[in-house]
């Protein structure tokens, strides 16, 4: 199986300071990987580094066989890495409605103007928000905002989704709904998911592997056993 992500001797940094030991990591395409660890251990920094939003201190990073970072030198711009990023709270752009948000992305991705409305409808159908085109992004509930953020990420046609605690602010039912939706999309689109979470219990039901960051060390990926996969309610 080909690799979605491969790091060699990668050292994460925050500001000018190294925050991890060198680590090697391989993520095969199509896997759902949970990234676990206590607050401040560098989970989000790992995702931001993979996305190219901040450089690593040392080591190399490859995405889908392409070298993207060689030490602090960035070789591939963030928007050219075939990634989608789901931020905590959605990080939706407050100045636009849902339709304008998605059309902004699609235009930037070079889609013909005539094809955009159909694509927006398809994206909203995926996240089950049909009819939300004209809603302002500032009036959406937490769950709706995260689903629009998911549609925005999917509009880039990513091969990998980076999920930075996107379920944190949602209640149990919404978390379950979004996890199921992500799982379905992963199967339909062949996505690789790298999923940072504080609460692994629910996500384990859908994930294949978990990795743990602790005190600057990345532990080897651990497959998730079927016995662990029973979702827990609140």
């Amino acid at each position: 199986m080909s690799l979605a992500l491969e790091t060699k001797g990668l050292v994460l940094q925050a500001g000018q300071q190294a925050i991890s030991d060198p680590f090697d990591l391989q993520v095969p395409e199509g896997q759902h990987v949970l990234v676990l660890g206590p607050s401040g251990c560098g989970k989000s920094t790992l995702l931001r580094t993979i996305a190219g939003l901040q450089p690593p201190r040392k080591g190399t990073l490859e995405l889908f066989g392409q070298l993207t970072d060689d030490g602090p030198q960035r070789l591939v711009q963030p928007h050219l890495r075939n990634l989608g990023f789901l931020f905590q709270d959605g990080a939706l752009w407050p100045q636009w409605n849902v339709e304008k948000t998605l059309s902004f992305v699609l235009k930037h991705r070079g889609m013909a103007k005539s094809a955009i409305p159909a694509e927006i409808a398809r994206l909203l159908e995926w996240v089950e928000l049909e009819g939300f085109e004209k809603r302002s992004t500032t009036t959406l509930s937490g769950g709706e905002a995260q689903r629009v953020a998911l549609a925005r990420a999917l509009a880039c046609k990513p091969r990998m989704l980076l999920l930075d605690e996107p379920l944190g602010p949602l209640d149990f039912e919404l978390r379950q709904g979004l996890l199921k939706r992500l799982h379905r999309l992963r199967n339909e689109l062949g996505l690789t998911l790298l999923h940072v979470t504080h609460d692994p219990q629910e996500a384990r039901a859908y994930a294949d592997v978990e990795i743990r960051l602790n005190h600057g060390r990345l532990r080897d990926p651990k497959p998730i056993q079927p016995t662990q996969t029973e979702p827990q309610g609140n």
Partner: protein
Amino acid sequence: MPTHRPTLILAVGALVLFGLLPLAVMAWRITGDMGALGRIIDGRTISLIGRTAMLGTGVAGFALLVGVPFGYMVARTDLPGRSLWAPLAWVPLLLPPLVLAMSWTVLAPLRGAPMTIWILGLGHFPLVATFVAKAARRIDRRQVEAARLVGGWSAQWRMEWPLIAPAAVLGATLAFVFAINDFAVPDYVSSVGPKFNVYADEVFATWQVDQKDAEAVSTALPLIALTLCALTLALVMRRRGSLASLASGFERPPILRLGRAKWPALVFALGLISVSVFLPVGQLLNEAGTGEDGWSLGHTGSAFSMALERCRDNLRASILLAAGAATLAVPVALAIGHGAARLKRGKWLLAACILPFAAPAILFGIGQISVWNHPATQSFYTGDGLVIAMLLGRYLIFPVLVLTSAVENLSPRLEEAAAMVGVSPLARLFRIVALPILPALAGAWTLVFVFAMRELDAAILVPAANKTVMFRLYNAVHFYRQDYVAALALVTLFVIMIPGLLWSLFARKKMDVLS
């Protein structure tokens, strides 16, 4: 959360008495002389409107052209020395436009409309730069990164611009309003070159000739309409700009690395601050120190001594009047700002505060005379009270806007928690609301102090304001411009800058942290 009604009523009472009543009286006068309305459509008036609109548009355009890149670079890039540029960007706004005019009419041979636009543009671009910088700092890092993942720098800029644009337009609109109401600069530039008449001096001239209030009002009506349109746009833009307000869990946006563009950007910033601050101040220093045998430190010293000796009383009067107006304006603005932020129909309070600023300064001054120049109020009319009241009424909108914004950013839960434990509405206003927004209160005080110190356009008519340093400067540059006049301009500038720079260096940082 309810407001403290007696406090709000008192504050609105001050606004009505010192801000709205003079305008209402002037509006009433026109009903007695409907023939005066005919002047609005004569050819001369229409050509004046055209010139004034051109001046305002030119100044707003100039302010946008330089203010947007300057504000964005200061806020969001690694421009060398950017922590220094941010407070320096305030200085041109602190400079009285007349002082800038004194310098630039010597520094460059340009005259007429281009020189007036240049001077007022330099004086007011900080409005755009400051609002743009503030808006650019309030965009969440994750929103920026989401855009960068979509389409790199171009997507980032296209995502950010709609959030920054309302702030830019708000700043440009205020620059437009200041420009079309400015009386001193067009008047002074006209006195040293070809005549460049605009509406503000026309209103003044009309009233000076025959003191017919109705004609002054009717002549001013198009200008008021123009100003009101611009200010309504400014208010709408302010509301749109609030989209970029800080949400919980806000993360500061990333700093853009300029790379090789760093040095041209530095040249631009240095050039802009040079032409708006260093060159004019340098010219005044040169003028103050130049005697028959050239420039000397001794001559500079004696010019400053003479300025202080001759104008000490004017300086003292200006400082006391401006400080009095600022000190009175802050609690009034806090009560109104709190009402505007918390009451359902509070935005009407903002609209009411705008009116005294929307009226031409000269007309506002005439209104004050009409209201207070009566035997029963003679002691108030001839005393400092009227000047303080006039400054309060005219500039109240600025502290009100600052404090409304500060209260809007403060969670209403704080007041609700206080109410639950029995804290009275008045105590909530001054203990729960005011204390966390102390830097904003300091900013509001500073704004009124600065504008009051710079004030000339309305004060020129009110007898009690004739002792201010700006009035003295105005007379001095017109009738006997000696070297001490440049020194006096510099001393005035120094006095105006002290609270502004203190606020910029200390309180503003705290405000950023709080917000």
